């Protein structure tokens, strides 16, 4: 997995690319999310457009970040959730937890 990030209207947008399955790739996303949280950047969007799939390790990272952000007055939102990941969120009932948007722009606008 590769990971890039950018900022739009004060919101951090993380753009993972590839597969989130555990091991070094999962650590990369986990560490970046917690780096943002530690530096008080607590409005975060994960753009999943280029993520082929994730497994339970990836879901665990999303939950950990969601909970930590919420406890610090922040929010984690998802954008461009692919069908495969949407299916995984539905199976695990996490679809009821995460706010998901069809585009990054819509997700950013939701913070206003």
């Amino acid at each position, binding site marked *: 997995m590769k990971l890039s990030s950018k900022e739009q209207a004060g919101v951090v947008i993380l753009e993972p690319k590839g*597969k989130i*399955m555990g*091991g070094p*790739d999962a650590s990369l996303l986990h560490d970046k999310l917690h780096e943002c949280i530690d530096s008080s950047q607590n409005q975060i969007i994960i753009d999943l457009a280029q993520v082929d799939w994730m497994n*339970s390790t990836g879901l665990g*990272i999303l939950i950990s970040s969601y*909970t930590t952000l919420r406890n610090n007055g922040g929010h984690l939102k998802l954008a461009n959730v692919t069908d*495969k990941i949407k299916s995984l969120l539905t*199976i695990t009932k996490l679809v009821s937890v995460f706010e998901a948007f069809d585009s990054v722009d819509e997700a950013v606008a939701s913070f206003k």
Partner: protein
Amino acid sequence: MDKPVITGNTIAIPSDVEHLADVDLFIEGILRGWEVDESRIADIAISVSELVNNAICHGNKSTRDKKVSATIDREGSLVVINVTDEGTGFSPENIENPIADDNLMKEVGRGIFIVQSLMDSVDFELTSTGSKVTIKKDI
């Protein structure tokens, strides 16, 4: 063993999550060779990653010199994959329901549930050398 070893349709890796990607590459490569559609490849790859991750972390307790193996075969229209470790096995019936309200926000504990949801069958077996999980998926 200190690096992945491929023998025919089997890959064996040291018990280190850094090798998850090696197993994925191997399994997805074979499935593409069989012209399996991408959605099913993803379902199988997710399931194998869950089982190999469990075998490394829970079965072999991340002891590098213990190996995890994944073998892939075809039985007619079924893909059959065995994942083995050198651990003492576990009881799947003891796994908590990850979609119960009390467990929904737990960071771990969804792996086997996901595998059971994505695959047509999942069987657990304790062998003389460790544990073995067999998954099957109609392609």
